């Protein structure tokens, strides 16, 4: 190795180590931001080192330089703009989008390698084939996942006619494609077959999974992209890609398991799909159920205004209605009246871990008012009104009994509060598709409304009380 090459490779190795250190620091809230910054600086150094290496090797054509600069500015610019401007609540779909482009880029590297016409040995052919398949699946799969979360693709699990048979055929097709590429690496038909089968498989894999399972799916596809990048590293014999890719592949797998555990699912059951249907926008049952006590916004306003302590329990419905600002406003007004307002945050409320924290932070709810589940639960007994806004499963007392989909999940003890008000549109079910006996509890009043409209009405009513 020349001196430059040695230096550049050592920079790559140092950068890879910094990625590890960064990830390590991201395990704890206190050091997380610093960790990401270390990783970012290391990445910048590695990219600069790569540019130096390429310049010294002098293989790059002028056109190549132009292509590289334009590509980088174009892609990087879009990435930066979107990352800066997107709403906090849309971050999961953005991560999924970045997954897609990462996987796509990794697949393109292998495609390029196979189309230059240089002799290709077996190892390269195999890893290139794997790179294309994994990268391709990730590309379309992540796009579908992002689309589902963004509402462009229906969140409902779509049943593909003869889905299982289609998937078997697709898997057979890309496996055949890889074998074909190993035998005849320069064959364009083989390449196209592999690409096409992988891209279609990404769609048929993710489409039947319910929108609510998307965070787990995105995390899994994130691990896939890591593996695809590692494969690209084998193709290009670039150690830094192998290390970083394998690192992401492995840590992403562990993370996927942690996420699935946190919401009481197994990775397998997510992929097999079919659960998580409750996420649909339709209303399932009608409001006029006999045992249910409905209340009006004015009733609720009086209850809240004269309470001493109110605990708000936000859930997925708050995010769906984008009602965080209305909620924050209500909280402020009540606090000004001297009501002790807190927010009880269940770890898996919403549709991504930390969803409620992100949402309420966006609406500038003061951080100390947010109570983690363990902190909030003992408070309910001394709470006058528990205000449940679009939350369902995380309050369902059925979780304390065995034998149903939420069994064993720790819940917020909303039913210990002196009275409960629930704002949701209907008697519709939540993510787990269960009825919630909290709603038929005599001390619960149901306010059937969209969260945004309902909260605005209550706020208006509280204001008239004050005036």
């Amino acid at each position, binding site marked *: 190795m020349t001196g430059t090459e040695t230096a550049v490779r050592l920079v790559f190795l140092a950068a890879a180590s910094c*990625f590890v250190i960064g990830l*390590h620091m*991201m*395990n704890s809230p206190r050091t*997380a931001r610093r*960790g*990401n910054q270390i990783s*970012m600086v290391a990445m910048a150094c590695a*990219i600069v080192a790569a540019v130096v290496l390429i310049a010294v*090797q002098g*293989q790059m*054509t002028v056109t190549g330089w132009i*292509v*590289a600069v334009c*590509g*980088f500015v174009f*892609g990087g610019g*879009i990435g*930066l703009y979107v*990352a*800066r401007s997107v709403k*906090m609540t849309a971050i*999961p779909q953005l*991560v999924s989008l*970045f997954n897609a*482009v990462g996987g*796509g880029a990794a697949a*393109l*590297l292998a495609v*390029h390698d196979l189309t*230059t016409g240089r002799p290709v040995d077996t190892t390269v052919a195999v890893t290139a084939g794997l790179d294309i398949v994994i990268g391709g699946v990730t590309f379309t799969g992540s796009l579908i996942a992002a689309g589902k979360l963004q509402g462009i693709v229906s969140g409902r699990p779509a049943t593909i006619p003869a889905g299982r048979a289609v998937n078997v055929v697709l898997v057979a097709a890309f496996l055949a494609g890889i074998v074909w590429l190993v035998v005849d690496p320069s064959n364009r038909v083989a390449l196209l077959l592999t690409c096409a089968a992988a891209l279609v498989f990404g769609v048929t894999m993710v489409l039947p999974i319910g929108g609510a399972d998307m965070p787990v799916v995105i995390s899994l596809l994130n691990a896939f992209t*890591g593996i695809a990048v*590692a494969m690209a590293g084998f193709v290009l*014999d*670039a150690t*830094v*890609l*192998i*290390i970083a*890719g*394998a*690192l*992401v592949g*492995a840590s*992403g*797998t562990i993370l996927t398991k*942690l*996420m699935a555990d946190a919401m009481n699912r197994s990775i397998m059951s997510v992929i097999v799909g079919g659960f998580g249907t409750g996420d649909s926008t339709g209303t399932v049952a009608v409001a006029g159920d006999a045992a249910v006590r409905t209340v009006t916004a004015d009733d609720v306003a009086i209850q809240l205004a004269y309470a001493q*302590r109110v605990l708000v329990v936000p859930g997925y419905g708050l995010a769906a209605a984008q009602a965080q600002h209305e909620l924050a406003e209500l*909280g402020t007004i009540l*606090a*000004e009246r*001297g009501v*002790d307002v807190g927010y009880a945050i269940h*770890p898996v409320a919403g549709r*991504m*871990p*930390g969803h409620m924290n992100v949402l309420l932070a966006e609406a500038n709810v003061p951080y*100390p*008012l947010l109570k983690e589940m363990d902190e909030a639960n003992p408070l309910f007994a001394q709470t006058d009104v528990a205000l449940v806004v679009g939350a369902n499963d995380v309050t369902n007392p059925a979780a304390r009994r065995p034998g149903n989909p939420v069994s064993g999940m720790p819940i917020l003890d909303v039913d210990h509060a002196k009275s409960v008000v629930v704002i949701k549109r209907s008697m519709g079910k939540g993510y787990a598709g269960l009825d919630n006996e909290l709603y038929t509890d005599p001390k619960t009043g149901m306010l059937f409304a969209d969260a945004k409209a309902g909260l605005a009405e209550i706020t208006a009513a509280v204001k008239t009380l004050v005036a």
Partner: protein
Amino acid sequence: MSTELFFDITTFVLAVLVGFEVISKVPATLHTPLMSGANSIHGVVVIGALLVTSTARGPLGYTIAFFAVALAAMNVVGGYAVTDRMLEMFKAKPAARPADAPADTSGNGHAS
């Protein structure tokens, strides 16, 4: 097996082991930032894209190289930016909006 391939495999295996060990018990609020952070790291594929561009020749080659660089750059730049943005919210902001503070300081005082 060539020595290079063996080297690459060794590196891969060791990096996988590091990846398995590096994630420990993470609080649920950090799951999404951590996923996003790992996402940015696979943006390292941009280095591969640059290497490929240096060997690219002809319209097809340049087109592929352009898309590879653009997609990878989007991954790496956007990924780090959005992760950092998410992690901003972990700055404890005790005096963020003093107007709301009374509700907090009155803590357990009002309790029955």
